């Protein structure tokens, strides 16, 4: 019988260092048949492992339209990510997935999209931005507001530039006060304040907000003042997981299993759940 806990082996194709403590990794299935058949939806996650160190949960941050490889991004914070930091091209890592629900990209068709991300939250937004750009006719205006503590903490800064060149795309970059450099051309301020100043239209819009709890807490009232209903504001929860498949019992948030029923929820859905996230 199939062993649901046994990871598939992946070859590391590329490692890219974004910040002093963030890297992204591009991997492909060693098994050509799996590489061919693998499909996922943007917003889903995987369990990525370094053998000997263990498994960690990351969003698959490449677009679901890209075939032959997938990408994920991590910050060096613990045992598994310390080991991943040492991983280089040609190394072998493990992958299980894709797991969880996904961004409701079909429901969002015909709408203006507002993406708001803080720090390491760029990768889970990036996959949705690319997906929307690759299906450009289906979506209205796209606004990306991305902030980090300092300029050197911005993840995927080159892709922000690429997006900004596209039609009907507005990219707003910001760093915390004190995090700017003399050359910095973006905004200076915390994300909620920058959002207030940016005068983004909420008309016919949905927002995807991902970031640290404190950022989300102060960003939601701004979105509400702008006129967005909580049912139109989404996030991706980051509850700790071990199995990813609804067995190990730790990601429960009230009556939901975040790994199975989430990780993507609207704030209207979250308002009915205890704040166990």
């Amino acid at each position, binding site marked *: 019988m199939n062993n649901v806990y*046994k990871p598939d082996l992946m070859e590391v194709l590329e490692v890219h260092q974004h910040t002093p403590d963030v890297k992204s990794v591009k991997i492909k299935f060693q098994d050509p048949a799996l590489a061919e058949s693998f499909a996922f939806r943007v917003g889903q996650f995987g369990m990525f492992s370094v*053998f000997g160190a*263990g498994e960690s949960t990351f969003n698959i941050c490449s677009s679901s339209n890209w075939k032959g490889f997938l990408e994920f991004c991590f910050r060096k914070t613990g045992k598994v990510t310390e080991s991943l930091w040492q991983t280089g091209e040609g190394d072998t890592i493990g992958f299980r997935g894709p797991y969880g629900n996904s961004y409701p990209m079909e429901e969002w068709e015909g709408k203006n999209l507002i993406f708001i991300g803080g720090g390491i939250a760029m990768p889970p937004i990036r996959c949705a931005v690319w997906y929307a750009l690759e299906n450009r006719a289906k979506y209205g205006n796209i606004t990306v507001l991305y902030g980090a503590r300092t300029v050197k903490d911005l993840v995927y800064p080159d892709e922000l530039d690429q997006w900004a060149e596209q039609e009907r795309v507005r990219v707003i970059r910001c760093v915390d006060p004190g995090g700017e450099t003399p050359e910095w051309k973006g905004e200076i301020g915390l994300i909620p304040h920058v959002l207030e100043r940016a005068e983004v239209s909420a008309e016919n819009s949905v927002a995807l907000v991902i970031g640290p709890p404190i950022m989300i807490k102060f960003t939601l009232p701004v979105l509400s003042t702008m006129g967005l209903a909580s049912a139109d504001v989404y996030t991706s929860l980051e509850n700790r997981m071990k199995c990813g*498949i609804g067995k190990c019992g730790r990601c429960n948030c009230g009556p939901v299993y975040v790994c199975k029923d989430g990780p993507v929820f609207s704030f209207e859905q979250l308002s009915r759940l205890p704040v166990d996230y």
Partner: protein
Amino acid sequence: MSELIAQEALPGLVAKWLAQGKRVAGPSVVKPGYCLYVELKSSAQLALEGFIRPRNSIKEFVFPHHEAICRYHFSGHTVETEDCDPPQVDQVIVGARPCDAAALPILDHLFTWDYEDKFYTERRKATTVVTLACQAHDDACFCTSLDLGPAAEQGSDVLLLAVPGGYEVRCLTDKGRALFAGETRTVEQTAVVPPGPPVMVAPGTIMAFLQARYDDPMWADLALRCLGCGACAYTCPTCHCFDIVDEGTAAGGCRVKNWDCCQFAMFTQHASGHNPRSGQSQRQRQRIQHKFRIYPEKFGVMLCTGCGNCARNCPVGLGVLSTLKETAGSAPVEVGV
């Protein structure tokens, strides 16, 4: 009319199962006054009387404390993985309490929904449960509040009921019938099932309590006593939370599943340091909530059999029963001390 096995014949039957190469587990007095379910090496180890119930549960025979789920070997930059299988051996759990046996069909939901955990299901298929109806209960028992009782049949393949000189044998499944075929004789007498503990709480009411008074100060009061030791979860027949970790050397190793517990602070701590359940009161609430809200909403059954092990094993006198009584608005009750 009923089927009977004589008291002195049962150890012989256990010895026969052992001789057939079966793995046999059952209650055993491991030190004076302390009974555990253990893997039996001989029928003499089996103890069926003289205690209310073992201090552990039978879940460890289908869901071990520690189990390899995958092996890995390093060779330069490459890694090879190897599947693991649970041991392919028939096992019999004899003398299980009805509140232990009933936990198995409850756990079946979790380990088979959407993704099937073969480590559980293959052990489960190879397991025959021979349950012994309870003759006595203590203050911690509350099976009748969970619609079970001293002779509940859920999860059992065979139910034994004590009668003078032996046990009435009620075979409930084909697996059970195969185990006792030719081992019993038909007699006139039938066993009298003793009454269990009185119905003390209505666990269904906890759902309304959690919805209406999620932040009730009662949880903080309970948590003041809780040591966060996890004894409740480890001895519970239905608690099943686990961790996945790698154990190995520079040459390779195993990825393993280990029992874990929602009462530990690290259980939910994010890599960032943020912890959704940073306080013991939140963790106490989570354990009750998982049993009486999350699990019933997901699978239609409560994650509790009323065995009372949480109270018996708690060093500070907490337990599911006393917590349910508090949520029901009645006075705090000291249980199982």
